[in-house]
């Protein structure tokens, strides 16, 4: 099969605090899904904080080896790829991370992310050609090269930085983008610009995106498929239009009911009674053990 396939992925952690009690904690629990390159699509993965979204992203990117289960790329386990196949995998599966601040090494200028990509993946044979590629990529994400090149990351705004990451993706032209909360730190106004570019990428370059978010409205905005994850398990999946319009799982319903609607005429308290009772809240908040116990040893 063509594409990325997750098969019964489980990831357990033993936190520092938990080491004493020995209890383990399943961040990802038996998750299976696949991302197809053809036709290009955007698959959203939504869920509350701590539900295991980032862990899944890291597993797909090969940054974290799952406790059990396998990730296959074009039918092959990504941990068993030959070095050539692995190169291809690296080239074709690229991330966009959440934090536009941490993604740049503060020691270097911003363009270094382009140049390392160009050098490592041998995208250009000369400096000029490389520069041309970079400029093209920057234009594709609506950035002026002179605003970005030769600058240090702290000299750029969050939105600019996130767009530089998109430009990098454009430069690499991967088949798959793993975007882990790429817009959660952006303003509403900038967020839309970003999402639009992502949509363009699908359209123009046929990139398939795993779009991870906790914001149901952005998931709705990008369209396509959606998976709802709760406490490491995928509880509901389907097309955005069905899942978000007629949710079937209570968790999805609860999530949806809690989303504030940007319309003063459709307020909650003008709707019926509060959907949330004390017990419910307790049941729903995953009791995530503190990983960093202050003052712990």
């Amino acid at each position, binding site marked *: 099969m063509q594409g990325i396939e997750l098969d019964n992925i489980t990831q357990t952690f033993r936190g520092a605090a938990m080491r004493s009690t020995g209890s383990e904690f399943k961040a990802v629990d038996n998750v299976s899904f696949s991302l197809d390159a053809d036709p290009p699509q955007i698959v959203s993965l939504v869920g509350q904080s701590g539900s295991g979204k980032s862990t899944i992203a890291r597993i797909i990117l090969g940054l974290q080896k799952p406790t059990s289960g396998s990730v296959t790329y074009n039918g092959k386990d990504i941990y068993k790829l030959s070095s050539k196949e692995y190169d291809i995998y690296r080239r074709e599966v690229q991330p966009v991370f959440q934090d536009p601040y941490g993604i740049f090494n503060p020691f270097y200028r911003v363009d270094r992310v382009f140049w390392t990509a160009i050098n490592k993946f041998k995208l250009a044979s000369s400096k000029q050609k490389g520069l041309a590629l970079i400029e093209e990529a920057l234009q594709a994400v609506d950035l002026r090269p002179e605003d970005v090149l030769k600058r240090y990351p702290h000299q750029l705004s969050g939105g600019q930085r996130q767009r530089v990451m998109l430009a990098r993706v454009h430069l690499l032209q991967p088949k798959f983008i793993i975007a882990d909360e790429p817009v959660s730190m952006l303003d509403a106004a900038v967020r839309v*610009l970003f999402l639009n570019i992502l949509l363009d990428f699908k359209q123009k370059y046929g990139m398939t995106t795993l779009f991870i978010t906790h914001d149901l409205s952005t998931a709705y905005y990008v369209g396509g498929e959606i998976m709802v994850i709760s406490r490491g398990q995928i509880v509901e999946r389907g097309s955005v239009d069905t899942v978000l319009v007629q949710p079937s799982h209570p968790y999805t319903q609860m999530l949806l009911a809690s989303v504030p609607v940007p319309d003063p005429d459709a307020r909650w308290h003008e709707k019926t009674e509060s959907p949330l009772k004390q017990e419910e809240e307790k049941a729903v908040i995953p009791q995530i053990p503190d990983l960093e116990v202050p003052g712990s040893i």
Partner: protein
Amino acid sequence: MAKNALKTVEKKTAVGSPLLDIEDLKVYYNTISGVAQAVDGVNLQIKRGEILGIAGESGCGKSTLTTALLRLTKPPAYVAAGRILFYPLNQQPINLLEVDGPDLRAFRWRNLAYLPQGSMSALNPVLRVKDQFSDVMLEHSEMSKRDALAMVPDLLKQVGLEAYVANMYPHELSGGMKQRVTLAMAIALEPDLLVADEPTTALDVHVQRVIIQMLAGLRDKMGMTVIIVTHDMAVHAELADRVAVMYAGGVVEVGDVRQIFKAPKHPYTRGLIGSIPRIGGERIRLGGIGGNTPSPRNWPTGCRFHPRCPQAMPICSQETPAFLPVANEAGSKVELQPLVACHLYSHPEAEGTSR
């Protein structure tokens, strides 16, 4: 209790009278690379009993403004100019920027309560919840410690928490519970004004909903005035009576929540509203606002929005637009007229074209 009840009644009757008058407030930061004019000439009026939402993109000065309201401005920030007039019940207005020491302390919490941004960490980690309650209650009243402690379960119940929470330490509480504990603490003395800075940002959607509904309920019950700061427009839509939109250190538009969402005046507000995706309905491509946030160390001349404004005119880069009332199609009443700082409205001829 009785006294508080009386106060509530008084407050409810005073609804609509002015509570806070912010005049040309300027709060600057001293930084290595120059002075950051984070809040630069804000004018705002808050009336008793209303919920005012303050919106605006990150870094536009929302938190700086609220901390200044509470006189919590700390170096390297300083108040460069302006007045904050506070109107106590049945008393002469007082410029908050001029009181100090014990006088200021008397104002705090009795009159002005605060839910800080990231109020998850607003609780002292080594004191039990009830002790943090009693601290503030003993400070501002003559009651005994026992009486103060006796009130705690009641207050907790008001924010939907069980009494046993009083005996817990902050780290034993979830984020939402902590947020509600601070809220309970804030309403303990039934203050005139509650300033909540991003009270829900770090919380999951359903907890966010609980908090927001609670704020609305409290206002209804106690006649409290609430200022809620958040960049999440949907929250404003849910909660606020009026919304002030900030951009680059200044308020660019203030108006009734419906007017802001239905008929935004300022191009920035329009952009903002136009960028909010909604669930359901037809999927249309939203516009967003291009360009970059300007630096507070170096604001653009004239209207600060002009470099990003789709309707920018030559005058925009030269003259700072005044903050003026604009007639609203919906409302004819003067107090419902939105205030906007935009050359589109200050020049009659331009006004025509924009409509």
